[in-house]
């Protein structure tokens, strides 16, 4: 049986993902290499150890951030 597709937002841009995608799967797909990052879903920070079990819901707003030069 096919999984349904739905929209989410990553860093303000629309993405289409499949139902039941986990954060781990999303991150793999985004191919972030060795970049350091942290992540919040709907303004809630999700720790790395919970990525595996975290299933992304439709319309989620995901922020993936890192550190840049700042004063």
């Amino acid at each position, binding site marked *: 049986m096919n999984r349904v597709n739905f929209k989410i937002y*990553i860093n303000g841009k629309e993405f289409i993902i499949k139902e039941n995608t986990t954060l781990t799967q999303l991150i793999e797909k985004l191919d*972030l290499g060795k970049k350091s990052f942290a992540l919040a879903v709907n*303004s809630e920070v999700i720790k790395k150890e919970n990525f595996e079990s975290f299933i992304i819901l439709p319309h989620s707003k995901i922020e993936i951030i890192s550190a840049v*030069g*700042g004063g």
Partner: protein
Amino acid sequence: MNDNLIIDGKEFRSRLFIGTGKHKSLKDLDDYISSSESEMITVAIRRLDLDDNHDNDLLSFLIEKKLNILPNTAGCKNIDEIILTCELSRELINTNWVKLEAIQDPKYLLPDPIMTMNAAEKLINKGFKVLPYINSDPALAKNLEEIGCSTVMPLASPIGSGNGIKNEESIKIIIEQSSIPVVVDAGLAVPSDASKMMEIGADAVLVNTAIAQARNSKQMGEAFKLGVKAGRISYKSGRIPNIEIASPSSPEENLLDA
């Protein structure tokens, strides 16, 4: 006995904090961090560029050098964004220290005292060590100390303006009344600015643009290192008083006759 700076139990040999904003290249940043001998480095938190394939990132670079990283909340437009930024940076950098910037004014980037106070209270309740960037308002500084901030960071003049010290009298009062470290931030343009702040008793200074954007950042990092040391030593060495007339440095007796 050393003269280290202690903030919330953490010890720093260097009283010069360095910002990473507007660095010209990672090489240049590396150079000026080294020459400055700073142990406390600020960063901003921004969305990752998902389309960028480069691996080299600032954070790994800083972690490798075993520097203390102080994330700021620059760019946040309200308290919710400030709190999310801090929680993300805690997860990212594994530190509960944050430099709180609560700014509404896009032209002078002057911090909002009410938003700063509210955000600081919430962050402290969530377990953060808060180092707030503030205008040089002694009463605000006292309020922030009372709710448990780790330092206050009054500005010398607007961020990146290179205007030097515009509020010296107010900073003096903040230093006089503060029981937590006072880190003078923003506007310092030359080593003498940093030195002067240390001479009047500031515990540390934070410098970014003046080093990162100097023609020779590496050298300027060293210059600020020396200036901060000069000022600190002077503060501990008891400067001469200011008097209204001259005081001869050569003796006035035993003058010869021609």
